């Protein structure tokens, strides 16, 4: 944890750093040699409390939001406005019988959800959730994040394989194949940011975006390459978290419930938790890389605490996840793979080139025009070619009287 250099004790600054100050105050009761470790422990406790709570809220808001999109209320009876719904779900999941299939691999079956949740939680360690609010400020923070998200794949496989159920295995294979395929564009799209900011450390990346031109921020999404990377990142992130329209691993219309078909009770709840936590962490990374992390969207809004901006941006991205889920049908396995390897990956590579071009063209409007033209042109071209090659597109129909 970075030290908290609160220079001015103006109220906004105090509010901004309130968590850090609180932590420092708590830690100050301990001997000095214990303080760093205690700080980390406190941070871990905070993360372990905050994000599951956020998960609980998100599930109920997702269900309500989906409901609204579908002209209905969604859960609104359990507690005020249905807010206690996730608590009830939790109580029930905890007390529900834990069925382990007879021929399942008991040990692996038991370990899979645990390792999944643990690896997903690890990802939060490097997220800067506000000014000075990263649990550990690693030099190779981005790398750490991706290595953790790569480790989740194995847990998914373990879950699917140990259940000894055809649907589970099929779901797990799908999930792993999909996650591996989309990890490549995910990594490469963030490489663009690393190229410009010149750092793998997430706080540094945020700082690189925290300037303003007039009132408008210097976020990477407001550059041609940044927008393109962001789109690719968003697509890949959706695929990584198995959300609609890439939710094939759980495609209930074909393979029942995917890799967690055979899980019940609390273990199933853990999978559920892990899915949402992954959504938060990947949204957090997306926000950090492209949307300026904890910096305010307009310069005069800086009085609002930084953690507020971080969490609102994350929630906004969660809303988009939900929105897409409410609208889109899912792709097919081969289409998903083709999309990853034949569309997203080449486009990402091109974008890397464009980023390099941007880096070396220097300030001025020329690089804006050149980069935008290349990206838009290639996008339209690839879209056209893809559509024609796959023979899909709008059709006309004839009538008989």
């Amino acid at each position, binding site marked *: 944890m970075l030290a908290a250099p609160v220079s001015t004790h103006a109220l906004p600054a105090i509010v901004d750093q309130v968590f850090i100050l609180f932590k420092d105050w708590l830690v100050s009761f301990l001997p000095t040699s214990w303080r760093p470790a205690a700080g980390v422990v406190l941070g871990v406790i905070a993360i372990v409390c905050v994000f599951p709570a956020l998960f609980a809220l998100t599930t109920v808001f997702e269900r309500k939001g989906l409901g609204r999109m579908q002209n209905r209320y969604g859960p609104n009876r359990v507690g005020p406005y249905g807010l206690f719904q996730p608590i009830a779900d939790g109580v029930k999941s905890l007390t529900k019988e834990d069925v382990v299939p007879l021929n399942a691999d008991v040990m692996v079956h038991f370990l899979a959800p645990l390792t999944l949740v643990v690896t997903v939680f690890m990802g939060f360690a490097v997220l800067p959730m506000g000014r000075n609010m990263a649990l550990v400020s690693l*030099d190779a923070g981005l*790398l750490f994040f991706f*290595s953790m998200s*790569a480790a989740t794949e*194995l847990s998914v496989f373990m879950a699917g*394989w140990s259940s000894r159920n055809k649907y589970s295995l099929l779901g797990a294979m799908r999930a792993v194949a999909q996650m*591996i395929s989309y990890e490549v564009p995910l990594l490469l799209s963030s490489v663009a940011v690393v190229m410009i900011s010149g750092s793998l450390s997430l706080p540094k990346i945020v700082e690189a975006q925290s300037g303003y031109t007039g009132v408008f921020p210097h976020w990477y999404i407001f550059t041609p390459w940044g927008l393109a990377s962001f789109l690719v990142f968003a697509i890949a992130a959706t695929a990584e978290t198995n959300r609609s329209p890439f939710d094939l691993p759980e495609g209930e219309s074909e393979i029942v419930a995917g890799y967690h078909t055979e899980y019940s009770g609390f273990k199933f709840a853990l999978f559920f938790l892990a899915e949402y936590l992954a959504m938060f962490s990947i949204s957090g990374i997306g926000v950090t890389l492209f949307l300026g992390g904890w910096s305010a969207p307009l310069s005069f809004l800086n009085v609002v605490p930084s953690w507020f901006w971080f969490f609102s941006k994350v929630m906004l991205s969660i809303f988009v996840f939900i929105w897409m889920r409410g609208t889109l049908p899912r792709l097919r396995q081969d289409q998903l793979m083709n999309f990853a390897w034949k569309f997203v990956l080449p486009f990402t590579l091109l974008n890397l080139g464009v980023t390099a071009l941007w880096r070396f063209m220097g300030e001025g409007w020329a690089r804006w025009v050149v980069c935008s033209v290349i990206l838009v042109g290639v996008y339209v071209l690839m879209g056209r070619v893809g559509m024609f090659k796959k023979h899909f597109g709008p059709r006309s129909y004839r009538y008989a009287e």
Partner: protein
Amino acid sequence: MSPVFYILAAFTVAGGLAAVLLKNTVHCALALTVAFAGLALLFLNLDAQFVGFAQILIYIGAVAILVVFAILLTRGTETPREGVFSRSWLAGLVIAACVFSALGWAVLESARALPHETAVPSVTVHDIGAALLGRYVLPLEIVALLLTSATIGAVIVAMHEKGSAH
């Protein structure tokens, strides 16, 4: 020699042993990832952050998954009827034991000459990047070539049969 080292070492060796000894192939692969994770932690213990994370990303995120996929694709999940160890297992064991004793003897012999605790080197990712694109740019290019050719080679090897079947 901190207790952390002993814990990690035990963890890693246990993973490695399990990977070699277990009956079920998938269990072996999973145990292998345990060993990989232990090694990654050891790297971190050695203050090699970048290598540690790269170890997790590549070994657990890619190699282990690859192994698992290969096991499933070759239907290796069932334990074979004829036993899991090769007929020449004894010879193998002997050779391994010999190798270990030779190495161990060499290490212990030279233990006195080995350097003692040194200061923690302050190497940032930035330094590594600079080194990769500076002094080590040639090996980097070669590795890039190697990786590309390996990818193509693996794809071709795996695709080949399908092509000829039709």
